[in-house]
């Protein structure tokens, strides 16, 4: 009986450790780090849409009404970083100096509402 109790206690300990290790591994994979931003955002009818705040480097904006679009990058303290304005349906602004903590936004430039879509990332390429 004593042997069985010891075995049961050891099994519980192994089970607990295994559970903790699995949880830690899952959390490490699930929680996005600074090196993996890829955040789409959109609105079905608006003149402006702000993206989520994260580590960003590039911001792409698309106007599905095809009337010109601006994609902008802002630092989290509100500092304007840069803007790309396109006469076409798509604009991409890339901050080649590296990522920073902030957000991107997308806006129409004719004042009209449109289906706007944006995507922030911190990839190295400007494309």
């Amino acid at each position, binding site marked *: 009986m004593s042997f069985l109790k010891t075995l049961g206690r050891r099994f519980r300990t192994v089970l607990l450790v295994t559970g903790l290790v699995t949880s830690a591994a899952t959390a490490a994979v699930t929680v996005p780090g600074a090196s993996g931003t890829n955040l789409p955002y959109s609105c079905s009818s608006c003149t402006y849409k702000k993206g989520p705040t994260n580590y960003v480097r590039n911001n792409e904006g698309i106007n599905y009404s*095809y009337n010109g679009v601006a994609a902008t990058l802002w630092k989290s303290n509100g500092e304007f970083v840069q803007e790309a*304005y396109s*006469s*076409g349906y798509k604009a*991409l602004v890339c901050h080649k*100096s590296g990522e920073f903590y902030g957000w991107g936004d997308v806006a129409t430039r004719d004042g009209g509402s449109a289906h706007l879509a944006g995507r922030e990332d911190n990839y190295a390429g400007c*494309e």
Partner: protein
Amino acid sequence: MRQMKPMQRVTLRAGRLLLVLAVAVCASAGTMFAVAFGAGSSGAQHFAIFTGRASVAGSGTTAAGGIAPPAGARLAVVAGSNSVFAWQPSNAEICVVDLEAAGIGGVACDRTPQAEAHGVVLALRPGATALAGGATLTTAVLVPDGVSTVSFVDRSGSIRTTAVENNVAVLADAQLASVRYSIPTGGEFVQPIPTSPAPASAAPTPGSE
């Protein structure tokens, strides 16, 4: 051969009809998709820079400041600290890319039929850090073959006319108000340039996303 019952014949005919309808719908959808997304239209015949008829440095060229352009982009003009590229990522769209030595860059794209008709305008506005590094509002225009000059109009009303080189005209002018040029199919294309980041009144409002 076994004689078919009337009900079986009706079912068979209905099946055939459905099949024909499905084929017709798929064909129509394919045609509409091709028209909408410019399939079959390479765009190259309207832009000499994509066909090699223009004198270009080739694709993959590193821009000023050591910034790599998108794969397949073709260097059109180096103006000051700006390297401007023409880029066709797919048959569906045509883009102009501006990479500045100050470490900022931008891309503007339009659908291929629109780009072929009147070109694509990109205005790249730097923030305070890039301004301190020597960058300024730079406007790059990718125009189709047949457009030889582009007029840049600033806020005082003065006009600077720039010759098109490799389908591109570019000007760095913080006070630029609009871009205008005659398009090959007739008429004039006019593109106002926004005066400030958009929308200035909405930014910044942290937490409103």
